[in-house]
């Protein structure tokens, strides 16, 4: 398929917007060509995931765009960096690596992006309207903006999100189009007890199951209670985008493109139906724990992937009240939410219990956890999935209440009755 560009897009390629915009347009057009997109679509906003240091090559790319006079053309938020800029010393990098990580964050800001430094930009004021075309990176943010807000983006890789922000264009294919947003797979969770479906700990596990089952397919999920809050949907999407390539899911009766199953399916028959039975769910839950079964040792607890919201901090503060943690307890969040909970008077009681708040970054992308790898307990499907490879820690998955009780006891305390 050949790619048709508008006159304005061709002009950008030829340098009308300067050399950085031309380079960005070459990359966007090449991405469109390799994905078979017939055209580009104008986007309203971007979320950029290229500000996390993975090596010097990414720093050189961002700095090249700055040198060439690059500037984002649409409102653009930034994902996590590799440093906690508000708490220097929290991330244990050697000076050289820390310096490169800082340079990448500085270059991202110099391109005109907002220094939000969060993987939950949708809880930092960046909320595109239903049906808006956007260009977002960061797999959990993509899942949320598509599924929960009903805006439209593909799962953009690092660099492409930034190039889309500079050109205000994205390749027009896939999740920008109605047909690809239609569910092909139905996951029926209605056979599970309602009590289970009302637990916070259910959602990361449902997501982990969904990602493994769906791959990159769009699923419609039956059995999510209609009053499920967005923190739970965020946990579901983040886990699904970790264990699979899920960019969009529909929770029937909850998310905006799925008032009913028929709407989510676009009037067609599903290609596949899967009934989520208790044993499948328990298997998905067990895959989130890599620590030796039967051992109750933990060395640290981490929550906040995706970054904790204000209401998640309120829940944590309520559970932690009057307790003193025996192991390090990290809660990762964005600087916007930090300001919000500071105003709400939550910082002192959280600190008193032993919660260490990490901002701008998180414990699986930067060396923050204790240097001696051990066992990490978490309520996040995404942390549970990525911690073993990224940090060397084995994982134990539990609810937020399990995490707090375990941190206070200094050993794993899980309420197994929840899963029966």
């Amino acid at each position: 398929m050949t790619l048709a560009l508008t006159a304005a897009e061709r002009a950008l390629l030829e340098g009308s917007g300067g050399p950085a915009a031309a380079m960005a347009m070459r990359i966007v057009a090449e991405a469109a060509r390799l994905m078979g997109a017939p055209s580009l679509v104008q986007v309203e906003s971007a979320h950029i995931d290229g500000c996390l240091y993975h090596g010097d090559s990414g720093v050189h790319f961002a700095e090249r765009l700055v040198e060439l006079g690059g500037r984002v053309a649409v409102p653009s938020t930034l994902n996590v960096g590799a440093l906690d800029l508000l708490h220097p010393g929290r991330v244990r990098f050697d000076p050289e690596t820390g310096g490169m990580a800082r340079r990448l964050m500085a270059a991202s800001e110099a391109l005109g992006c907002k220094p939000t430094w969060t993987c939950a930009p949708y809880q930092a004021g960046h909320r595109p309207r239903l049906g808006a075309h956007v260009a977002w990176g960061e797999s959990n943010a993509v899942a949320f903006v598509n599924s929960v807000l009903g805006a439209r983006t593909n799962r953009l890789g690092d660099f492409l999100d930034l190039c889309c922000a500079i050109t205000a264009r994205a390749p027009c294919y896939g999740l920008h189009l109605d047909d690809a947003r239609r569910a092909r797979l139905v996951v029926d969770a209605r056979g599970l007890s309602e009590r289970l479906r009302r637990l916070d700990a259910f959602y990361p596990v449902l997501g982990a199951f969904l990602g493994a089952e769906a791959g990159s397919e769009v699923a419609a999920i039956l059995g999510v209670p209609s009053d499920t809050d967005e923190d739970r949907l965020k946990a579901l999407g983040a886990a699904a985008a970790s264990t699979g390539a899920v960019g969009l899911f529909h929770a029937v009766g909850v998310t905006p493109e799925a008032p009913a199953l028929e709407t989510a399916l676009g009037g067609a028959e599903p290609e596949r139906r899967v009934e989520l039975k208790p044993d499948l769910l328990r298997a998905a839950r067990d895959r989130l724990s890599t620590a030796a079964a039967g051992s109750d040792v933990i060395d640290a607890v981490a929550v906040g992937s995706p970054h904790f919201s204000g209401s998640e901090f309120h829940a944590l503060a309520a559970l932690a009240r009057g307790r003193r943690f025996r192991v390090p307890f990290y809660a990762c969040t964005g600087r916007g939410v930090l300001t919000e909970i500071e105003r709400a008077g939550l910082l002192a009681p959280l600190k008193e219990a032993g919660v260490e708040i990490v901002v701008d970054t998180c414990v699986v992308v930067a060396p923050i956890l204790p240097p001696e790898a051990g066992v990490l307990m978490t309520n996040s499907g995404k942390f549970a999935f990525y911690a073993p490879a990224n940090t060397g820690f084995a994982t134990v998955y539990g609810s937020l209440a399990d995490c707090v009780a375990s941190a206070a006891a200094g050993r794993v305390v899980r309420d197994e009755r929840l899963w029966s």
Partner: protein
Amino acid sequence: MVLKGRVLVAGSAEGPLLRMTAPLSFWGGVDPKTGRISDPRHPQHGLAIGGTVLALPEPRGSSSSSAVMLELIARGLAPAALLLGEADAILALGIVVAGEMGHPTLPALEVAELERLPEGRVRVDIDGSIRAG
């Protein structure tokens, strides 16, 4: 035996076939400093992907995999070629950006029936043909 892939990034290369037996996210799954599979849950944990014709039947995981691909290329640790069961704007894009930054690139193809490729050495040509031996 010859298979034909759809060219995502053009090029020719040769190397031993390394077929992923489970989905692999480059971010969190491949160490950009060593080019080895670093996810301890992956059945091929520890294998080096550098210089191989890497066959990935299913895409998975993080959008940061583009950055890991670019870093592997910049360090000379990238696969010789990439064969994807489904076109993926994430890994192939890391190769496109590498080209913009003046690094060598590698061919990436979308290939149906990846399972038909026999083990052993594989040659990828600029027109998207893939030959065993």
